[in-house]
């Protein structure tokens, strides 16, 4: 098996940055054959996807835990409006139902009246 202690420019470009950084910090001789590096990179990418997918869910959960009910309601306001527009097949200029108004906007609308 061909062993290389340093990377060629071509290899450096194909190596994931995280793997390259980790390799630079580890002592000892490494198997840097194209096959071994490719398998390691693929394994790393798969693992990274899993971590990022889990992180996305945790991020959303952490965000929602910090937001007030009014804020969550406001966040959905236009989404609800858009869904209704799509269902009706035309643009709704006025949202008449207080059920779709987030609390904060509803209070504000009442105060204005």
């Amino acid at each position, binding site marked *: 098996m061909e*062993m290389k202690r340093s990377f060629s420019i071509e290899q450096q470009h194909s190596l*994931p940055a*995280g*793997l390259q*950084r*980790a*390799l630079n*910090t*580890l002592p*000892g*001789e*490494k*198997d*840097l054959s194209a096959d*071994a*590096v490719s398998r*390691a*990179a693929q*394994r*790393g990418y798969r*693992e*990274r996807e899993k*971590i*990022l997918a*889990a*992180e*996305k869910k*945790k*991020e*959303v959960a*952490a*965000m929602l*835990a*910090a*937001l*007030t009910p009014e*804020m969550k309601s*406001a*966040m*959905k*306001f*236009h*989404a609800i409006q*858009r869904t209704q527009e799509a269902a009706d097949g035309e643009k709704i200029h006025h949202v008449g139902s207080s059920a779709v108004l*987030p609390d*904060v*906007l509803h209070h*504000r609308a009442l105060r204005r009246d």
Partner: protein
Amino acid sequence: METTSLLFDAECRVLGELCTTGGSLVRAVLTDDGEEKIGSALHLWQTEGVPFLRKMEDVQVQEHISVRDGRFLESVRQWASVMHLQFVSVTSDVLACWQQIARLPLEPLQRYSMLLALRSLDVQELSVWRESLHEATDAVTHEREKAAKEIQTMWTNVAKSLVISPKRKKT
């Protein structure tokens, strides 16, 4: 006094920020989407001015308004309407909250909806929102940092699989 206006496309993706004072342009910052969609228009504004339709009695006259003109903001507002873009001017307090919202894992439509809600809040409500948004961005940042460390550890483990053990070397 400086005014900040945000531009959004029809899908509520933010295209950029325009800062104006007395109606004339101070600076413009575009996002990647903004660069793609209105980057060339912004370039034309700087060289030729913003196309602006002015009604004179029964006739409409087209002018080009310079970025240094006090009517710049008004002309961009009209241009945005013609281009079917959303143009939202915000106070500095709302802008501070918007900057927090922009860091949250939200869909463009959700961000835009929150911005519109923010604009209708009074000072006291805005303060409560600011506090909650701050907590939310902190929590999200914490999760991102945890994931970044996890990825770093994962790459170290993957890299270890490439280290040739002395035993393996002998064989």
